[in-house]
């Protein structure tokens, strides 16, 4: 044994021989210790790795799986189990969850739903930018120019998903077929007739991958915030529209929840509000048990303060102040139930009104106005002139344009404008229909239960009137334009200007009172008829002017709506500034971030990509030709 060992000049052989020697010395302890280590042959399992196609944007399913496995890994890690790869993956998940937490925190501080939503949009675009930059802006040009797919992924024998070119020192080349490699080689123009062509191509691919990875790391710090903010900016309008849809839908469900609908969402809403009311009931029960009449009064005052409608608040105030003196449990709890019912109806009603008539149509106001302007077919220079014009000149400019049109052209314009302007008016009318029905049925019922039938009818009417003002505003504004255009046919420029000028809400009271004084009700009706189509609105205005009802003066402006000239001029201003990237401030921001920041970055990136795969001192590109039979060097 010793002899055989002495022939070995390799220190490893000596190490292997240690346990054998110890065995000879009858050291059972050591032999047991080393037995498994030295004498069990490892069994080779054939590798199971395979290439997979990566995606530009992570699939939701994959993301879900990733987080599930992250949770499992974390649970195991808490027990001290895990490997480098799994634990390293935890970092990505932690960044995702942390960023979502940050977005939620920022959203909680934001005041409007839009601002809240944009915090989450920012979170999403940040991760999207991180993924899209290397895959699209670097990966695609590199693949197009060199054929190397730096985003190639593979699954290893342990089922772990990795990037193929992640570690340039450990590239699983055996997963790539000769065909795939040769395809890249041909694109890279690696000579055909060289020795070890596959290796030569692999080296070139590795060079390009290293170059791309480095470029990615050097640019990602700039690309992610720039791309992210540009994407978030572009998503503003779609997010606004989506929010409208969601809010309107939710508001509808709240209405149907009050109506007693039993669909899934409505019942969920009812369950939540029932939970809230039972908690309040409990609190009220305690106050009753204590005999705390001041507390009960305060409790009810707090509840009535949550009501949106001032009319309702005033109507029930007496009941609220009386309930403080009551000690009857049933009476107090009864009022509480009725009041929570009313509160639910009030919130659902005003929520729907806000979602549909205020925000919904308000958000699309500018777009509809712009479409009306588009239908007018005004030349660009005239639009610019209109945008810059003083208030007094606006109607002149538009009427000049209308006057220059042929009658058939004007008819076509009127047809188009009627179509465009009709949409918000119809939407508003249909929403108002739902609102009126709701007020007359569940809302009035809830009110009735507290203040009695007669009062309820009166208050419900007032609420309906006040909420109806918005519909009149919408109707007067958009129908006003159509009406003015229709009446312009065959009229003199002066008349057209007058029609387009409408009745300015700021001067309305003086102007209309003057007309009333001079020509009486008939003259006033004629004057209003020039601008307005709704008989109801005209009657209301006449009523106010006739009675000089000061409480309604403020509403006059709403009933008259926006004048046609103002509506078209606003659209012109929007169009002009939009063509200049909305506003000067926005243009400056976009120039700095998008054009200078993003442009320079993209330019440098593409330039670097163009230089990839070229020979340099690290990659000399020296190939040895293959010796072919009959082509041997002569001896």
């Amino acid at each position, binding site marked *: 044994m010793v002899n055989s060992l002495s022939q070995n000049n390799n220190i490893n052989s000596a190490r292997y021989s240690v346990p054998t020697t110890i065995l000879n010395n009858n050291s059972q302890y050591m032999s047991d210790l080393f037995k498994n280590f030295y004498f069990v042959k490892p069994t080779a399992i054939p590798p199971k790795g395979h290439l997979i196609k990566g995606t530009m944007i992570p699939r939701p399913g994959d993301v879900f799986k990733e987080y599930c496995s992250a949770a499992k890994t974390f649970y195991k*890690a808490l027990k001290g189990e895990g490997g480098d790869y799994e634990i390293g993956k935890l970092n990505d998940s932690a960044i995702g969850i*942390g960023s979502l937490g940050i977005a939620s925190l920022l959203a909680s*501080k934001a005041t409007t739903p839009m601002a809240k939503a944009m915090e989450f949009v920012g979170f999403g675009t940040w991760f999207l930018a991180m993924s899209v930059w290397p895959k699209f802006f670097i990966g695609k040009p590199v693949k197009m120019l060199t054929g190397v797919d730096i985003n190639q992924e593979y699954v290893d024998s342990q089922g772990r998903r990795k990037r193929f070119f*992640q570690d340039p020192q450990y590239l699983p080349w055996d997963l790539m077929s000769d065909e795939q490699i040769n395809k890249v080689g041909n694109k890279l123009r690696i000579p055909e007739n060289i020795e070890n062509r596959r290796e030569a191509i692999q080296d070139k691919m590795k060079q390009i991958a*290293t*170059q791309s990875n*480095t470029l990615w790391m050097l640019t990602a710090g700039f690309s992610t915030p720039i791309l992210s903010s540009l994407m978030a900016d572009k998503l503003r309008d779609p997010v606004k529209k989506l929010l409208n849809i969601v809010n309107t839908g939710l508001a509808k469900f709240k209405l149907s929840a009050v109506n007693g609908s039993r669909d899934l969402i409505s019942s969920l809403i009812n369950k939540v509000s029932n939970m809230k009311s039972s908690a309040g009931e409990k609190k009220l029960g305690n106050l009753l048990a204590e005999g705390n009449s001041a507390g009960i009064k305060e409790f009810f005052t707090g509840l009535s303060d949550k009501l949106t409608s001032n009319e309702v608040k005033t109507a029930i105030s007496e009941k609220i102040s009386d309930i403080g003196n009551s000690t009857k449990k049933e009476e107090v709890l009864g009022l509480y139930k009725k009041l929570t019912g009313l509160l639910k109806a009030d919130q659902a009603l005003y929520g729907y009104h806000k979602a549909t008539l205020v925000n919904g149509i308000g958000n699309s106001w500018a777009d509809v106005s712009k479409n009306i302007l588009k239908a007018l077919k005004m030349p660009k220079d005239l639009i610019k002139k209109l945008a810059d014009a003083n208030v007094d000149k606006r109607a002149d400019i538009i009427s000049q344009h209308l006057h220059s049109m042929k009658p058939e052209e004007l008819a076509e314009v009127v047809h188009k404008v009627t179509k465009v302007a009709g949409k918000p008016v119809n939407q508003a009318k249909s929403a108002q229909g739902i609102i009126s029905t709701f007020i007359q049925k569940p809302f009035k019922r809830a009110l009735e239960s507290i203040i009695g039938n007669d009062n309820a009818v009166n208050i419900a009417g007032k609420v309906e009137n006040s909420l109806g003002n918005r519909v009149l505003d919408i109707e007067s504004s958009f129908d006003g334009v159509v009406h003015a255009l229709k009446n312009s046919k065959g009229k003199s420029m002066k008349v057209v200007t007058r029609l387009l000028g409408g009745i300015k809400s700021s001067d309305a009271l003086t102007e209309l009172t003057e007309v009333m004084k001079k020509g009486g009700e008939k003259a006033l009706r004629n004057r209003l008829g020039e601008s307005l189509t709704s008989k109801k609105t005209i009657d209301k205005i006449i009523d106010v002017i006739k009675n000089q009802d000061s409480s309604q003066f403020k509403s006059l402006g709403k009933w008259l709506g926006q004048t046609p000239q103002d509506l078209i001029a606003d659209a012109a201003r929007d169009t002009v500034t939009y063509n200049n990237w909305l506003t000067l*401030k926005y243009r400056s921001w976009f120039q700095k971030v998008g054009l200078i*920041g993003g442009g320079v970055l993209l330019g440098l990136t593409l330039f670097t990509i163009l230089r990839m795969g070229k020979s340099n*001192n690290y990659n000399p590109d020296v190939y040895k030709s293959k010796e072919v039979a009959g082509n041997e060097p002569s001896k």
Partner: protein
Amino acid sequence: MIKTDRTNNLSPSQQNIYFKKLAADLKANKANQPEAVKTCEMDVSLDSKIYDSINKAHDEILPTDIKTKTRVNITQALSLPEYAVRGLKGDPDANFFEFLQLAKIPYYVGGPILALCFAAGGDAAKAITRQKAVGVGLFYLAAMLASKAINVPVKMFTGVDLDQSYKKIVRLRTKSPDGLSPMRKEYHKVFESTDFTYFDLLRHGEDKAAHNHRIINKNFNDIAKKMGINHNLNDSDSTVKPNVKKLIIMSRAWKYALTIPYAALAIGLSMQDSWKNLGNQLKNDFVRNALTSKQGMSPLENTWFRIKGAGLTLKGQFWNTLKNSVKDFWNGTGAKGITKYYGKAAVISAITATLLANWSILRAGSLKDKKSVDVSKFPDAIQEKRKNLMKNAFDIVGKSRA
């Protein structure tokens, strides 16, 4: 770590020639004639420095003093341009470590660029830019603290310094015909990997082990002691190693998890209104306190006065603003409804998570209740066995060498 053991009595310059000649011989297929190597003539064109350093270079653990840590950090930061240039050229020797080092660039550049994207909004975006910039700064601080919140207690209570760096020598592909690999230096953490933990680096005084085998496990003995074993272990390394691996896994997982509440805390603080006024008076205060000379003072006193002034200005601006933001966040100033309690929730969750993390790591890392043999109670039997083992092992090594 493993040093080349060459005892052929050559001077350093002769050793260089040994390598050079060996390379030449390899080329000429004369590797089997070592005699020829010894008799070769001196070559003046030889770059003795390179071969000398190749000869001596080995992986080594670095001291943990601040000076070394700073030097390592600076060296690593200064290597980034080199990594970038080589990477952009497609160096075949580029490795994953270099890629990970380059990944620090987007990490540290992304935040400030995000703040700049807001700053591009002009004057109207001034307040929000300031808040975002503060948020970015506090986020980096929070991420750093999340790591320290684990590393410091773990080192204190288990003796495992998760921040311990070592110098790694990376041998590159052979390019020259002499057959020697060029090399590069990298700075890694000893406990960066759980699969391949570099425990060898913790072996102590390996060259003296033949004479005093106890010395080799000195570091492991220290760790074992801190982990709660108060007696002598026969082989402290094998007792400690699995536990250290457990510590590495748990601390890494907890560090990632802690980043979540810490980052939330940082962003929550940056959202407070007190940051909106940060820097409004900075310029004026700085000019008044740090750049204006005080009359009736000597130049030295004046300099000292100005330095103090600058310090006070910065303290007034940053420290006080931070304090106010913490107060506001805790009290929920300006917040409504449930959001009023976010500050308290963020602070409490960060503290609770830190305590929970350290409790679970230290509990799992403790060896207090683990059974182990006190070697001093069985000195004869164990020492006899060890003596036999060492004797046999060294005998065989000696014989094989001979």
